[in-house]
């Protein structure tokens, strides 16, 4: 062990911001603790019992004091609330464009990681510096939590839905991945490493892997395998909505609502197509795929649908 620190490695811009907030909280917390300890000590010593007959006069309270020590802490806490909320929304709302999307599937007890280029890894995540990386998290069984202390980020990986968060790595190195939500026998072995590399070395690393097909190409195969292609003929509006240029766009539903076509929406529309019907189309045309497609194939399928909307920049290699 090298030098001892109360901070884990700080490898992203967001981590520095969280640490700054933590520093503020520590300052306030230690300050308050010292204040209370000081008064307890001073009162305990100064007003210690001098004779068993002591009968000190009663003091029943002071409204101004009560108001002061309610309102002042509350105002300080408002700062904590505002600052913490801002950072929280920031870390959990990925930028809408130009992110490096990586797909993570948790299962007892490993992390399966897929890159858009088709590379796959187990318990190892490689990311470049200087680029917004967006993780899409899925689980095959129980709830896990994908935790990277160096980025000060985690999110539960909830089966049946996608969760996302994002970060921009700044410092090359190898950092821990932990599963932070108890998931059974080998919970504490459901760990891995995230390797942050500079962009040039990252490109070299990407090309080093033996990948035959990209995620989108794999997804296209799934698309054919499940017979999606028979109805969803590309570039053709028929009984079913076209899939081109859907991803990332708002979609009008038949109940008047508008939703954003993100990963969660596509997922729901595949597994449970009647949940949200696009305006102008009929329900009950598409079969239900709940329980039919594995999480990894589903992710590939979604990347394929994504690739139908993204102009070139999404497909690396």
């Amino acid at each position, binding site marked *: 062990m090298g030098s001892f620190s109360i901070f884990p490695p700080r490898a992203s811009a967001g981590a520095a911001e969280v640490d700054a907030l933590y520093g503020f909280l520590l300052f306030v917390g230690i300050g308050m603790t010292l204040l209370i300890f000081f008064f*307890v000590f001073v*009162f305990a010593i100064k007003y210690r019992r001098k004779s068993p007959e*002591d009968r000190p006069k009663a003091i*029943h309270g002071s409204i101004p004091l009560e108001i002061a020590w309610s309102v002042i802490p509350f105002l300080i*806490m408002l700062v904590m609330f505002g600052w913490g909320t801002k950072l*929280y929304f920031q870390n959990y709302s990925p930028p809408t464009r130009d992110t490096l999307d990586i797909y993570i599937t948790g299962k007892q007890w490993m992390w399966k990681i897929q890159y858009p280029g088709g590379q796959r890894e187990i318990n190892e995540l490689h990311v470049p510096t200087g680029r917004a990386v967006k993780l899409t998290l899925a689980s095959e069984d129980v*709830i896990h939590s994908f935790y990277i202390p160096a980025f000060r980020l*985690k999110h539960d990986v*909830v089966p049946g839905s996608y969760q996302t968060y994002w970060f921009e790595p700044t410092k090359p190195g190898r950092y821990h991945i932990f599963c*932070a939500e108890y998931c059974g026998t080998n919970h504490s072995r459901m760990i891995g490493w995230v390797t942050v590399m500079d962009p040039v070395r990252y490109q070299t690393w990407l090309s080093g892997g033996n990948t035959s097909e990209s995620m989108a190409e794999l997804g296209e195969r799934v698309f054919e395998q499940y017979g999606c292609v028979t109805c969803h003929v590309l570039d053709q509006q028929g009984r079913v909505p076209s899939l081109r240029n859907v991803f990332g766009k708002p979609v009008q539903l038949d109940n008047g609502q508008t939703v954003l076509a993100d990963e969660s929406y596509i997922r729901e529309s595949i597994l449970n197509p009647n949940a949200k019907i696009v305006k102008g189309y009929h329900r009950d045309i598409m079969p239900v795929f709940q329980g039919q497609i594995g999480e990894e194939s589903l992710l590939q399928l979604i990347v394929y649908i994504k690739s139908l909307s993204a102009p070139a920049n999404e497909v690396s290699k």
Partner: protein
Amino acid sequence: MSTTLPHPELGVQTNYLNADYGWKSWLFTTDHKRIALLYLFSITAFFFVGGAFAVAMRVNLLSPNGIFAHDTYNKLFTMHGVIMVFFFLVPSIPATLGNFLIPPMIGARDLAFPRINLLSWYIYIVGGVMALTAIVRGGVDTGWTFYAPFSSTYSNTHVILAAMGVFVAGFSSILTGLNFIITIHTMRCPGMYWSRLPLFVWGHYATALIQVLATPVLAITIFLLCLERVLQAGIFDPNLGGDPVLFQHLFWFYSHPAVYIMILPGMAVISELVACFSRKAIFGYGFVAFSSVAIAVLGFLVWGHHLFVAGQSMYASMVFSFISFLVAVPSAIKVFNWTATMYQGSVSYDTPMLYAFGFIGLFTIGGLTGLFLATMAIDVHVTDTYFVIAHFHYVMVGGMVMAYLGGIHFWFPKITGRLYPEVWAKFAALVIFVGFNLTFFPQFILGYLGMPRRYATYAEEFHLLNVMSTAGASILGIGYLIPMIYLAWAWRHGPISPQNPWHAKGLEWEQSPTPPPTFNFIEPPVMTEPAYNYSGAEEEVELG
């Protein structure tokens, strides 16, 4: 205790302990004081069972690679949590000290429903036996939170038996709370206005509100979970269309308010101790009393802060975060008022007051680290790490157990009619304080460094802090054994206590004999002065 007061030989008087003999007189008693003792002994037993699991856990964590098999460790922390939360912390102060003291404090002869009181103890024992049976038959490994779908589908341990034990024990808690509420409403003696209630009673009133209103939701949640485990119909299983986050909502609707079930009675005890050992009326009585109720009510509105990273809506998280800060205000009010109570007082350093000092210090740290967890961006990093473990042990063990021990020492003469050895007691209080901090302070650092909770093995860099923590735990363990020994000794052989060894205010000391007779009072009690009238003022000014 430095008391050399001449004491009347109360031992020959009839009191609740010698009014009747034989095991039947205990197991079929309806006397709230005897039921309190039944609870005291059973809770102590569970405390040491839960403590034994904690010791085993700390031993395992001496080495980064662990010592026990992973499954064993998973069962250890689950059973530690289940036993400590549901069978020690929730009933601890209310069912023992509360049960014993609320009637004499408000001038009543018993609780409103004595038979229901006894029933609640039997229910508690049935629940406890079910949980222990689950342990003996191989244990349970879901964590005390029983999160679905792991608990409902994937775990192959005795989930149903353990969960039903919790379900059953919940009804014991409900009945205790119900009894307190009705007793406090209807059984106060002449002159015992709400504005004169001891803060101990106010704290228990707030606790009882939570017990009555939150526990049924836990019961139904566990019921749905067990049914799901039998039927596999999918109500919490996403593969079948269910939503696991719903389980967390329902679970925390009880379990967050439940942490206030665990801390409010501790605060209630501390208010009594600080007033008595400072010989002062509590500073800001109205604020302290009202803050208990405010904590109880606001405590119901914050459960979502356990779900900041669980897939809850970010907007809902924002609301829950805000209210979580709000609930910190009444807690802070209490700490400030206790501190201010000592101002210009006459502070003595008897053992109960040492525990009160410990409580104020450790609860301050526990409460302030709660703000870290209410701050969403920090919570994302430290939730489900040792930071959370340290935080709630500072509140539950540093707060509640300190208050419990302080209360046990304070009312030991009342309960047993005898005095405990003061030197040993002070020594034990010191050992517990040191051991506690050494155990749990390193865990704050571990948490921010990123060590997740419920890990049987851990990364090499966390080794040093874990060893420190285990060292502290061994000191803490010894610290808890010392009071066991000298209190058991003093129960039989301690010097006879006068009626009011602390010169404390309150009906239970001033108008009820020590130890009390079966119906608490010889003459019907009357409250003739405000609470905590330590200055002996004839006419009291309007309270703040």
